[in-house]
């Protein structure tokens, strides 16, 4: 079951890297987050530890419900054209993602911890989304993918106290909110959320 969910996460991340439409990326992101939340819940069911339940619930509430609402709302408000501008085109992105997944599974081939391997793949794909896309909103989704990787790391590596875990997830949510508000302002000031217009600050 958990292996299947991890596979869902990986496949969704491959999808995200090449798809051209912002709405579709958001939907895939929801799938990915749901899979991560379910993994945490399943682990909670298996081990009976409260921490996993909380982490899973928090992930589902923030990343499957609240953050997509923020993204969709700003998409509707901004009336941006739904196509995202790519710096690296779709085909190459797919290949790059594939290579990254191979690398992250290759480096850690000796370890049996699939969470960490998937987590590292998510880090790299998140950063790729941030670097290779021009729209501010896709950069935000890239960051959230990166954060999903962190959650996988957290599941695998450590058991922290409840307050701390809640703090971490809460801050992720807040950061997404901050980015959302900022995108709104950027759109108002620049008439676009294309980061190509960010060229005022040079030496």
């Amino acid at each position, binding site marked *: 079951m958990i292996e299947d969910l991890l596979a869902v996460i990986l496949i969704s991340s491959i999808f995200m890297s090449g798809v051209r439409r912002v709405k579709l990326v958001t939907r895939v992101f929801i799938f990915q987050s749901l899979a991560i939340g379910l993994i945490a819940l399943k682990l909670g069911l298996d081990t009976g530890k409260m921490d996993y339940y909380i982490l899973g619930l928090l992930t589902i509430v923030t990343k499957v419900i609240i953050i997509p609402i923020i993204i969709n709302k700003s998409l509707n408000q901004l009336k941006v054209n739904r196509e995202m501008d790519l710096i690296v085109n779709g085909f190459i992105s797919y290949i790059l993602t594939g290579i990254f997944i191979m690398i992250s599974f290759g480096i850690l081939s000796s370890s049996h911890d699939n969470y960490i391997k998937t987590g590292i793949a998510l880090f790299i794909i998140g950063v790729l989304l941030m670097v290779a896309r021009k729209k501010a909103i896709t950069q935000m989704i890239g*960051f959230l993918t*990166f954060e999903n990787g*962190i959650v996988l*790391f957290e599941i695998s590596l450590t058991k922290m106290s409840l307050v*701390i875990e809640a703090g*971490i997830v809460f801050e992720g949510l807040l950061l997404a909110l*901050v980015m959302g508000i*900022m995108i709104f302002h950027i759109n108002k000031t620049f008439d676009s959320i294309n*980061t190509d217009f960010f060229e005022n*600050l040079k030496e």
Partner: protein
Amino acid sequence: MYIILLGILFLLMIITPLIFKNIKATGLVTILGSLFILSITIKIIMLVSRFHSLSFFNEFFYIDSLTLLQLLIISSINIIVSIYSYKYIQGEIVEKKISLKRGRLYYFLFNFFVFFMIFIALTNNIVAMWIGLEGTTLTTAFLIGFNINKESLESAWKYVIICSIGIGIGFIGILIFVNGYSSGDPAQILKWSHLAKSSTPQSTYAIKIAFTLIFVGLGTKAGLAPMHTWLPDAHSEAPSPVSAMMSGVLLNLALYVILRFYIITKHIPGLSNTRWLFIIFGCLSLLISSFSILRQLNYKRLLAFSSVENLGIIALGLGIGSKITVFGALLHSLIHALGKSLLFLTAGNILSAYKTKRIDKINALIKTMPINAVFLILGMLVIVGAPPFPSFFSEYSIIVGTVQSGNYIITALYSLCLLLVFAGFLKVFIKIVFNAEPGVTYEKLEIDKENTLPLSLCFILIIVMILFMNGYLSSMINNAVSIICN
């Protein structure tokens, strides 16, 4: 007891701007609150000097001399900046640059920002330190984009993206770090005071990777080159009081968190070479910033690059790791906070008078704004390390340390960069202050007298620091040095 008091104080300070519509009252409450914070800090300092270290709430908060230094920096800069903000925000509202609502938002975010910084300094939980750093990112993101124009939004977006990635990488490092110690008692595992005493971890290799990730990730927040790219933009676009706070205090605090991890790491046999991370990144920061300083056209950007340079000096001092250089680094972090705040606040006054950040548009400041010109020169002397000021001794002791440890190449590089910075600063500031163009008559501006109280307060603090150098202050820094070097 004191911790609870601090908590209540911050709660009041954060709630006030949300409830009261009067911006003056909010400003006064913030000033009063920062006074209380300073007095609590002094009280805590007196307590710790008797007991060596204190811990509260099942060791969630832990105070030793290293914390005290940070507390001292935060609370003293906080009071200066909140006095400055009082007039600054009112001036902006009168000029209709910002609405009343944004003025209240400023105080809300500012107090939250200070809260997170004090939290980082006091906490003993390594993940809570990270949460605090992330909290400062959240609050300062809006403070940088406070003016909502193209430049400030661009810099704020850059800041959020780069720093959140950096801090994410730092968090991965922290997770691996904690995992390396997972054989220990699970209740104690996140406590710094426990980790610093504990025996060797399961795998030194994992700790090595973890510390490198932490250094690079949190180093982004500390503004060490080459991860500094957000810094000049953010510091030049933020409102001047915020730049003063960020440059003087926040960068320092990020380095402090790295230092906490370094203290744990360096005891582990086989990992003493992690100090080269500090040395290499410090030297890189020095090199990149000193050459950038020479070609700046914007005086706030110049000051921002100088922050990178000073953080490089501090990192270098910590990296060399002999007692004298660590002493120099800690002393430098203290004096840099005061000096850089003085400079940024003066720059803020000049900006509000001239409405431009370009160096070539400002001439003969000594005639138009004599008071600010004097503070500008004094601040410059503090930052470049002229002899009567403690920055001279801190920079000098780092030179002595590098020579003693035999790293002659680093000594040469370090002195070259200091010289370059000195030249760059002199060139710009002499031009700004004394250069009078022929045929132009300069009149004294009325605005000169505005908002000079925080500047003089800042300078008085520097003088106080010089006077107490040999007594209490140096013993406090020496205690902190013994925590790091022991």
